[in-house]
């Protein structure tokens, strides 16, 4: 049951071979069994899930059918869920129960999705290892001594451990793609503006984008179909029609022009590079051609990101002041004390580091040298991508430089940690869709192949990933003990 695709589950539900309640019980049982060791979920909503499943079963009994109707999922704990705690992985929101649903949550709920619980994550999505969570690190099911990546680490580990048919995630600098790669699942970050950000707790507003972690591109297509689309509550969401992603999965790849980014392959570890080249062989056998392209400004993406993202985060996180909701220090003696201690005690070290960095780069006297310059570089990177996409249809390369690393190995060295996102950040800065899919193993740990396309080319990325997955079975591999 837990290894079936969303399409298969929907068929079973439609044919009455199983009920949503049975399916939900099955996954809840797996969560109960595996989560204590993995720490992938911070909240399990068994009761609500069974009620939602029963409601889905009633809809099914009335003859209603839908690709997600009655199918369970886990939401990253960054999406506000009406009546259920939304912690964002932070002590600051440990007591926060949102009185409303994020648009992503509402759309999936309306489609009959059954929420099993909320996934652990790096605090306020700031991290690449899921070690910054107030609720402790998430363990990688492939090796519980290793991190699952981050910030959507809980969502990714839950997928790898088959705790749900799919999970939601968010990606500001690689937070869907990097953990997807490190846990052997398929993850897509759509074009900026494709999915509403309303109700998704903001980290860096100009970079944040919601997406899906799934067993396959086919499953991801079914979920994205429901999540995507214009939302009048998010001014940055784009009012453009949503293509029929599932229907476009089958298109042939003949003539597909694949760009290989010189900057991605320079210095790439040889076993990682070998996996990418194996994948390219699959693509060329399908009629695609490859050409080397260069994005000269791409090497500047990490420093650029670490100016833009903290700047926005320093402002976005100002609302957490202990006044209206969230953590509030005991016995504040005055207003300043309330602010200082509520924020000082409510936020963890990585969040504080970024708030301080962001405050610094926006300060008078530094603004031009950091923030403005970063915006300029961002435009140059954007332009590089635009040029590249005049020659190729999709860029292919690694998702991460290395497989999953040990818990504790990098947490005290922020710069090394930040370099984990070296291949993923570019797509965020340019607002492009990116997808990571499993393409093999290094040291017994899964590795990801990354596809990046022009704006609103999600269907092309899903199509290319699906065609690859029809011919390979990397995405079907399960970690031992979770089969």
């Amino acid at each position, binding site marked *: 049951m837990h290894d079936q695709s969303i399409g298969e589950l929907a068929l079973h539900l439609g044919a009455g071979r199983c009920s949503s309640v049975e399916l939900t019980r099955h996954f809840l049982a797996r969560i109960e069994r595996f989560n204590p060791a993995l720490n992938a979920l911070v909240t399990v909503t068994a009761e609500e899930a069974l009620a939602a499943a029963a409601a889905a079963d009633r809809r099914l009994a009335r003859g209603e059918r839908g690709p997600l109707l009655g199918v369970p999922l886990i939401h990253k704990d960054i999406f506000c869920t009406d009546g259920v705690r*939304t912690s964002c992985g932070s002590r600051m929101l440990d007591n926060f129960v949102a009185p409303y649903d994020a648009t992503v949550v509402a759309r999936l709920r309306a489609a009959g999705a059954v929420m099993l619980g909320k996934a652990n994550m790096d605090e306020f999505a700031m991290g690449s290892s899921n070690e910054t969570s107030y609720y402790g690190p998430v363990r990688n099911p492939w090796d519980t001594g290793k991190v699952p990546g981050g910030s959507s680490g809980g969502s990714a580990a839950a997928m790898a451990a088959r705790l749900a048919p799919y999970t939601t995630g968010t990606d500001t600098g690689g937070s869907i793609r990097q953990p997807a790669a490190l846990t052997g699942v398929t993850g897509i970050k759509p074009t900026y503006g494709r999915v509403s950000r309303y109700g998704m707790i903001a980290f860096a507003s100009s970079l944040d984008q919601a997406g899906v972690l799934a067993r396959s591109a086919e499953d991801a297509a079914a979920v994205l179909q429901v999540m995507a689309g214009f939302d009048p509550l*998010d*001014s940055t969401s784009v009012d453009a029609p949503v293509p029929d992603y599932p229907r476009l999965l089958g298109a042939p790849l003949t003539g597909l022009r694949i760009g290989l980014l010189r900057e991605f392959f320079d210095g790439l570890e040889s076993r990682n590079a070998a996996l990418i080249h194996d994948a390219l062989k699959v693509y060329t056998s399908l009629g695609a051609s490859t050409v080397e392209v260069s994005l000269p400004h791409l090497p500047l993406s990490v420093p650029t990101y670490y100016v833009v993202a903290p700047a926005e985060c320093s402002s976005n996180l100002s609302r957490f002041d202990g006044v*209206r909701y969230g953590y509030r220090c005991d016995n504040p003696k005055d207003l300043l004390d309330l602010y200082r201690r509520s924020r000082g005690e409510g936020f963890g070290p990585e969040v504080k580091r970024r708030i301080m960095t962001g405050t610094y780069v926006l300060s008078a006297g530094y603004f031009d040298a950091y923030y403005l310059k970063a915006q300029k570089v961002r435009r140059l990177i954007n332009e590089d991508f635009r040029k590249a996409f005049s020659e190729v249809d999709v860029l292919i390369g690694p998702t991460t430089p290395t497989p999953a690393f040990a818990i504790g190995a990098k947490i005290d060295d922020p710069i090394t940690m930040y370099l984990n996102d070296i291949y993923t950040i570019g797509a965020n800065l340019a607002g492009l869709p990116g997808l990571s899919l499993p393409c093999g193993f290094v040291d017994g740990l899964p590795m990801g192949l990354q596809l990046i396309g022009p704006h609103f080319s999600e269907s092309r990325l899903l199509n290319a990933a699906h065609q690859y997955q029809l011919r390979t079975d990397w995405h079907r591999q399960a970690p031992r003990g979770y089969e």
Partner: protein
Amino acid sequence: MADWEVVIGLEIHAQLATRSKIFSGSATAYGAPPNTQANLVDLAYPGVLPVLNAEAVRMAVKFGLAIGAHIAPRSVFARKNYFYPDLPKGYQISQYELPVVSRGSLRIVLEDGTQKIVGVTRAHLEEDAGKSLHEGLANASGIDLNRAGTPLLEIVSEPDMRSAKEAVAYMKKIHTLVRYLEICDGNMQEGSFRCDANVSVRPRGQEKFGTRAEIKNLNSFRFVEKAIQHEVARQIDVIESGGKVVQETRLYDSDKDETRSMRSKEEANDYRYFPDPDLLPVEVSEGFIAEVRSSLPELPDEKAARFAHDLALSAYDAGVLSASRELGEYFEAVLAELGTAHAKLAANWVMGELSSALNRDNLDITRSKVLPADLKGLLSRIVDATISGKIAKDVFEAMWSEGKSADQIIEAKGLKQITDSGAIESVIDAVIAANPRQLADYRAGKDKLFGFFVGQVMKAMGGKANPAQLNDLLKAKLGG
């Protein structure tokens, strides 16, 4: 003592009269119980996002066009970051580098008739903050976020004003304008229209500006004038006693009639402005501008010019009657039925009896107890000589208090003017007969006694004699 020149610039905050807030769907009505008009966006809940109210942009563009300003085809909302409990997001959304309106100007007229052009540097859209409440709470402060997110147009003038009087004239002109445009209710008690004044002094002839102080939150014309006068005197005093004016923010205390220091430049916040990534730049097309332009009402200056030119009113009368859109509309409604030939009569009545009655009862023109059609009814009776102007004043008072038409009152009280010469002549005869000594004196050359006879006849006739007729007949009879 040196000759000092005063330099003043004003930042006016006009609350835009949109039904909902600038970035949320909450109502903007004043006076609701605390926090009943604050939704999740206003409370800055995690995950919520602002959505721009297009009506606020339309209103800003309206204002820009009315002052001949440049309308930016693309303007940008920025975040002004600072912590305060009445600022739920920890930043205020405001236009910073690229405001929607820039480089406009308007003409002010001082009491002595001199005119002056004042430049408007910019007008930008922003959201208001909430309010902190300290009264009635022991060891605590309350926060009311009803006002948080209310749209404001901040109108920044050039430092073009040279006296408190000019500053007040400018503020009044903006007040008139925003009410004409129906983009702000102008209610200063409720804070819908308030201003900060930047004040400095310099020796006359010096080009460089002196160091300025900013006086915050002035919410009446009188306070603006007094605060500036006080501040000017303070600054001159500081300089003349060998001190230096420091750049700072000051607060005007109307009870003590003085300004007090709030914070100096050194203590000023670094607001860390940057473009708000949650909002797209505001694009204003040529077509939109043209559409707004075509919707503009006749503006005060245009109306005053038309009154002066077409109706042959004095510049003063034209100015008074166009000072508010409603007053002008009232005046024109009276005139529409009465005919423009009687413009001066209508103007005198609107500015005279009507205005004093309104003032006495503290009423707005829109709540006048005598409607334009009724006033026209009254004035028609003057024009057709049914009653005299003097009697008309009594009729007006009765109309005001009893709510009846002029004709009803004239009829009920028998005030119809007597134009029957026979009737008037017989009263004249009786008065002359009763006052032989005065008659003799008059005939001996005491011309002034003519008035005495007019008065006696009018008294005997209850004031209803047609004055012109009475004059002619009396003159003839007295002449013997």
